[in-house]
């Protein structure tokens, strides 16, 4: 496992057969982790949810075992200091931690004060604090926002501020725990650029936990974690080519690597450039009738659509003066469609979605559901027709059991007891949680809690379901399971309208894609048509998935690995 030992850099983090169990848990969260990290390296840690990644982070600065209770075995040494003896109070200036949830990391009323907080605690002289604030704000590009209230910043800016407020401590080691999970694609790229800058300008030792496989490419080392253990450790070129191992660890392999592995290619590409070479070297070819086949299957789906279900007619909406969120949106959604809405945060996606089930009513224009204006329908009437699954399932779950939670909707809508029970059972069976109905929903993983939320909407038997970023925070395994559920619902007749930041999901599952930017629809059409035009995507700041860009270079837009496999012809291999 230990490659490139010839590198002379010294080891700044040493973890030695680390075992940890949380106070109330019955199982170990870490089961013997040993890891050495060299100064100045970028190490990306990947793995499914509950693999122990965050737990490992908490052990680095002594939060475990000093703040989080449990039993710890083994040792962690930071710069030679044993975390068991030193504790957070002396380690915090040596290793900075940034978490996924930026909201919980900001507690000041002004950007500048937020960044000052760490150095204040160090007891530094005021001029030194001023210098550090300036440097941290410059690195994160927040200098112009120094007087703003953190609460008024966008999600991406908040995460940058969380990073700045740790940078001002100027720790030799930084550890980011899924810094981009809650961000839109544009802000994800901003954070990735920042990590690169940190490496180049400050020779920072960086540990990043990340779900985005493409971003692991630039790491010095990739560590795979699974079940509290390290499953693989090596340079990205080696780890990311081992698609089987990645699948075992419920990590999404790069789509191009996956494709070539499944095609039986003898070299596995990681980038589009490599893929083009490999495609030629292997003499792969698209079937001559590939495009026709794809167009036919698209047309097939379109034939199943029924009558218009939702019509939006020049809708305008604003949250207040100068806070216009929709600026004239028109569209029609027919029964049985599968639509995704793409766009950056603040582009009006969620505002539009909330108009579809009457949570918001347009300030100008009209939204009609089955021909009736939402302005003339009660919340109950609309709730029966259009279900809405919110982004965070925890914003709605409250009952003691899963079953009671799912029953809540039908009961509120006045469905009789017996029928409500039957509908709840159907819904739970659909999402696969009927067996666990009497458990507390809060004992479930995030992925399953999201399914409880879907079930509680399904139980009211709506014709259409709106899903607002249903896959945020899920790992690859959970995500695929969620999407196959959504696909099944669509195939059984539900109209699906889904907001997502996950572009490959939009490409791979939706029949129709709507691109939004600044409160307007910039493109609306069959998904294949939209993804064929990368220039149009870039207008909404969206970059097509690797595999789609590759297919566009081949001249035919192909949206997923499966489609690619159906369309590719393997000619006989002859050695170059």
């Amino acid at each position, binding site marked *: 496992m230990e490659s490139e030992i010839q590198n002379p850099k010294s080891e700044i983090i040493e973890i030695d057969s680390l075992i940890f169990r949380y106070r109330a848990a019955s199982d170990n969260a870490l089961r013997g982790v040993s890891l050495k990290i060299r100064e100045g390296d970028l190490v990306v840690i990947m793995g499914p949810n509950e693999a122990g990644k965050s737990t490992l982070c908490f052990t680095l600065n002594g*939060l475990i075992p000093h703040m989080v209770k449990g039993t710890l075995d083994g040792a962690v040494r930071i710069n030679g200091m044993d975390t068991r003896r030193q504790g957070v109070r002396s380690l915090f200036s040596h290793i*900075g931690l940034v978490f996924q949830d930026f909201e919980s990391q900001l507690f000041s*009323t002004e950007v500048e*004060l937020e960044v000052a*907080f760490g150095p204040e*605690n160090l007891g530094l002289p005021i001029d030194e604090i001023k210098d550090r604030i300036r440097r941290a704000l410059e690195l994160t590009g927040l200098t112009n926002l120094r007087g703003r*209230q953190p609460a008024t910043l966008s999600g991406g800016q908040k995460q940058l501020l969380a990073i700045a407020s740790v940078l001002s401590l100027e720790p030799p080691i930084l550890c980011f725990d899924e810094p981009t999970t809650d961000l839109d694609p544009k802000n994800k790229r901003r954070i990735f650029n920042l990590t690169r800058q940190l490496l180049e300008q400050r020779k920072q030792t960086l540990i990043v936990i990340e779900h985005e496989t493409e971003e692991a490419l630039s790491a010095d080392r990739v560590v795979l974690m699974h079940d509290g253990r390290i499953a693989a450790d090596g340079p990205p070129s080696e780890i990311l080519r081992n698609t089987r191992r990645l699948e075992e660890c419920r990590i999404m392999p790069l789509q191009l690597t996956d494709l070539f592995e499944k095609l039986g290619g003898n070299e596995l590409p990681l980038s589009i450039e490599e893929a083009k070479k490999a495609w030629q070297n292997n003499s792969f070819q698209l079937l001559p009738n590939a495009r026709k086949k794809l167009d036919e299957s698209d047309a097939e789906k379109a034939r199943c659509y029924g009558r218009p279900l939702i019509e939006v007619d020049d809708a305008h909406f604003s949250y207040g003066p100068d806070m216009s969120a929709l600026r004239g949106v028109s569209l029609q959604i027919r029964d049985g469609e599968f639509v995704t809405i793409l766009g950056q945060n603040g582009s009006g996606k969620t505002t539009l979605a909330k108009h579809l089930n009457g*949570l918001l009513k347009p300030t100008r224009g009209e939204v009609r559901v089955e021909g009736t204006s939402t302005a003339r329908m009660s919340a109950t009437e609309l709730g029966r027709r259009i279900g809405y699954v919110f982004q965070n399932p925890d914003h709605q*779950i409250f009952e003691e059991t899963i079953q009671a939670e799912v029953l809540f*909707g039908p009961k509120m809508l006045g469905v009789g007891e017996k029928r409500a029970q039957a509908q709840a059972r159907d819904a739970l069976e659909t999402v696969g949680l009927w067996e666990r109905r009497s458990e507390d929903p809060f004992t479930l993983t995030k992925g399953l809690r999201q399914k409880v939320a879907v079930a509680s909407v399904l139980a009211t038997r709506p014709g259409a379901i709106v899903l607002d970023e249903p896959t945020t925070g899920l790992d690859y395994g959970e995500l695929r399971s969620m999407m196959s559920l959504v696909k099944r619902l669509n195939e059984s007749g539900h109209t699906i309208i889904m907001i997502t930041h996950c572009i490959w999901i939009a490409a791979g599952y939706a029949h129709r894609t709507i691109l939004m930017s600044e409160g307007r629809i910039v493109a609306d059409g069959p998904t294949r048509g939209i993804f064929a035009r990368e220039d149009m995507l870039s207008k909404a700041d969206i970059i097509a998935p690797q595999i789609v860009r590759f297919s566009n270079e081949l001249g035919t837009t192909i949206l997923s690995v499966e489609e690619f496999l159906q369309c590719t012809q393997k000619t006989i291999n002859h050695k170059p």
Partner: protein
Amino acid sequence: MNPYLYESKNTIIHRLDPRTKILILMATFVIALAPSTLPHAFAAVTLVIIYASLGRAWPVIARMRNFLVIITVFTILVWGIIPRGGEILWMFIRRESLVFGVLTAIKIDAILLAGMVFLATTRNEEITIGLVKMGAPYVMCFAFSTALRLVPTFAQTGSTVVEAQKSRGLELDTGGLWKRMKSYVPLMTPIFLVSIRNANLMALALEARGFAAGKSRTFYIQLKMRLRDWIALALTAVLLGVSLYIAS
């Protein structure tokens, strides 16, 4: 969303040190509570009105006017029916009761106005740092200012939860008192659980940034008492003395 009363302006009151403003506020409470005659009470409220004008706090007070009217009416009513001396004016309401009611209403209004001026001219973090510099324990002040910062966040979480439950059919404004109070359970529970869980993370983030590190802490906001602060305090002391002298 910003529910706070503070309005960023450049007035002499805004520029005062928060400690000065806290002391003025406390003195105002005494000045407002001291009067036992109507003319004296009017004099006290006039002082507060001058203070409000100096701080250009009238837009904030205008926002709160309904509220002030209700309190005035209510106070007069409550004290009016509590029996005191004097002839009966109407039904069982006696003259002294009514006078006492009006007097108290004026005093309360003066106090509330002073509070509004304070909040309209002083930022939350200035209040906190002012309290710390006046000797309040830092950790407690930190908890207080964190709470101030969390209120809008929770209000936002709250509105998301309301939307989520509404779209599942929860109706908030129908039914009797009992049903309406019960409908708070599906709202409060998710808000509490989500926020408390985040609080756990916040505690970890705080420790990771050296909170409670035990070192002597630097304060980035530096307060400085200037000449205008001392003048303001001297003036306040004089007014306080005069007011107490009249009252005795």
